[in-house]
């Protein structure tokens, strides 16, 4: 389902259950991907952007921690699944990429980077989500420095994990 009105992205609000193909073209739902674990959801412009290439390499650097810590890492862009698959392989990433090549969620999420009239990409944005897709934190990635640092991701994963596991 695609909502017509913009969705409010802020801590404590529900994040929509995105339905998008993954980097192999297989249909996915974000709730299925989360599978009951905390999620770091990264919207990035695309493979062509040098800032994104740098940031994605940083994420690959922490995937070893995510893979042993019961937390999910998901990257979303407007690249096609084929392009994402090649980019993912080049990075050595083992986490999931979701493709919004049709730009179905850009408008409802209010994440269109309006300045780029060539690619019409996602505005770089990082969200950390509870397993039920409630937003824990939001990072606007403009100017690169707005993106979540790896330490901020670790801090958020710690906070979410504590909240949902230690009870």
């Amino acid at each position, binding site marked *: 389902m695609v909502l017509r009105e913009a969705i409010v992205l802020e801590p404590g609000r529900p994040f929509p259950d995105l339905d998008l193909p993954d980097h192999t073209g297989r249909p996915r739902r974000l709730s299925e991907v989360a599978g009951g674990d905390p999620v770091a959801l990264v919207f990035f412009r695309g493979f062509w952007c040098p800032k994104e290439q740098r940031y994605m390499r940083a994420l690959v650097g922490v995937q070893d921690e995510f893979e042993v810590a019961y937390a999910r890492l998901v990257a979303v862009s407007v690249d096609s699944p084929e392009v994402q698959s090649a980019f*993912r392989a080049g990075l050595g990433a083992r986490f999931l990429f979701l493709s919004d090549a049709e730009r179905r969620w850009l408008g409802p999420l209010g994440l269109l980077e309006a300045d780029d009239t060539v690619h019409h990409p996602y505005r770089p944005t990082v969200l950390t989500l509870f397993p039920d897709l409630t937003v824990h934190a939001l990072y606007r990635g403009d100017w690169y420095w707005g993106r979540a640092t790896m330490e901020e991701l670790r801090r958020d994963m710690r906070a979410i994990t504590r909240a949902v596991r230690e009870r």
Partner: protein
Amino acid sequence: MSAEVARGFRWLWLDGDRLSLDPDAGGRRFGADPRPFEAEPVRGAWAHVCAVCDDESARIPYDQPEVQLARADALAWWIPLLGDSLVCLTTLSLDSVHYGGAITVTRDPDRFRADPFARLFPGRVIRTDLFGEVPPPPGPVLERYAGAPWPAGSFSAPSEGDRA
């Protein structure tokens, strides 16, 4: 729901070239991801079974690096390589600690020679109607949930009221 499904796995018996969910079928018993057996079976699928059925000593602790690396390879390139052909995959547990093998089920057997799990135990190709389609693990989680055979299992999702 059987007790093993509730614990995140389903018993599966391998006897030579025969796979069965029947406890009376004989052969070696393995724990598998229960989800493929709850989905609509894909008729005439091909299973690449990387396991040994006649040697109880053929086992490796799940946490050994070679088992971890095979799982990482599955996420990195094995699943993307199989693409739409993939029906499901599951590792096979012998108990809460030991890995006994893996099964990759596809609609055609062309790429089984690349199976990363065949590095651990030799693979054999079996035609099967047992397995249904299950979305592949999204990664990057390699750890198992409460001893279930990867990628089965999960923590139960808490409700909002459960949060600290």
